[in-house]
């Protein structure tokens, strides 16, 4: 299915989904890149920075898809909007905080994103299916890495465990926001099942691991305002950081 074959409402919903996914990956990439130089060990520093770079790469591919669909420039989409125009899930409104918090956030995000990518793998919108196939291959390693870290923090003694549990309790409601909204796309064959069903599958898949490690369970429903326009001061700070160079000279050519 090409962009021309889409009805206007489906096309708008697809654009919304692409923007949400791109902003998720983009903002997470910037938050996690904040660990560069200060991660708990040198090897993890390299690994976590590499994961963060991967997310920026995914965001780039998704902004490009959106630009192909709606016109516009991927860089302008990434850097040229006001903070309240970003559509990332509330999960990504939290600051980096401590290591356990960043691990918990990335674990919740990567597992939810994997469920979302599963539901898009056979998308009737072929450009998206192609990008998703590539993202899934990279996310395999992200998942392995985050499962490994959650396991170690959960079983690694009193303090790491306490910090991990506190982080998960704080993040769970906003994590549900990653899989909330847009059901129009199911009828059009862009998405295999409603996001609420994807969310249930994600949570059912996580339940045995959470139970085995004695980690907090999710609440029943996501909060209101899952993807803006209200944005936290922490995100506004991050936005100041990642748009700083561009804002200093918007006409500059690189």
């Amino acid at each position, binding site marked *: 299915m090409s962009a021309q074959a889409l009805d206007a409402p489906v096309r708008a919903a697809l654009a919304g989904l692409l923007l949400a996914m791109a902003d998720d990956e983009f903002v997470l990439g910037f938050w996690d890149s904040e660990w560069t130089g200060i991660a708990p*060990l*040198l*090897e*993890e520093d*390299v*690994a976590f920075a*590499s994961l963060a770079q991967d997310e920026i790469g995914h965001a780039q591919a998704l902004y490009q898809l959106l630009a192909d669909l709606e016109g516009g420039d991927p860089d302008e989409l990434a850097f040229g909007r006001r903070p309240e125009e970003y559509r990332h899930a509330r999960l990504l409104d939290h600051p980096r905080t401590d290591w356990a918090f960043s691990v918990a956030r990335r674990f919740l995000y990567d597992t939810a994103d994997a469920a979302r990518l599963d539901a898009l793998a056979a998308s009737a919108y072929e450009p998206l299916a192609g990008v998703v196939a590539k993202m899934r291959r990279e996310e395999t*390693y992200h998942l*392995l*890495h985050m499962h*490994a870290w959650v396991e*170690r923090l959960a079983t*690694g*003694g009193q303090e*790491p465990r306490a910090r991990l549990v506190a982080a998960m309790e704080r993040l769970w409601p906003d994590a549900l926001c990653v899989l909330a909204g847009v059901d129009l796309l199911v009828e059009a064959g862009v998405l295999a099942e409603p996001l609420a069903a994807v969310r249930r599958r994600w949570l059912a898949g996580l339940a045995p691991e959470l139970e085995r490690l004695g980690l907090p369970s999710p609440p029943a429903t996501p909060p209101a305002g899952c993807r803006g326009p209200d944005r936290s001061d922490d995100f506004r700070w991050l936005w100041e950081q990642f748009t700083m160079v561009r804002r200093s000279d918007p006409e500059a050519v690189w």
Partner: protein
Amino acid sequence: MPGQPMQVYEVFRREREGGPMQHAGNLLAPDPELATHYAREFYGRRQESVRLWIVPRAAIVDLDDPDLLQPPFDRSFKKPVGYSTEIKAKLAQARSRAGTEQVEP
């Protein structure tokens, strides 16, 4: 991670199918699983490897005894160099006789 001392792992990589496993470098990790992840990051994330071996340095049998490796007498006759020099000369002579002389690349 309490109770998990960091260990050094030596990493070997194969650059392309059919190539040899060559020493790439080393890293520190608390266990083999994270060692695998870090090896992937250090020696595989730019698609520069098709296979990695990740070996705890403690598993390597180390030999650096000079009596075994650098004996004091002349051992040049154990090297194939002399033989190969001679055989190359003979080959050149034979080619010359047969009129099939080749220019060395």
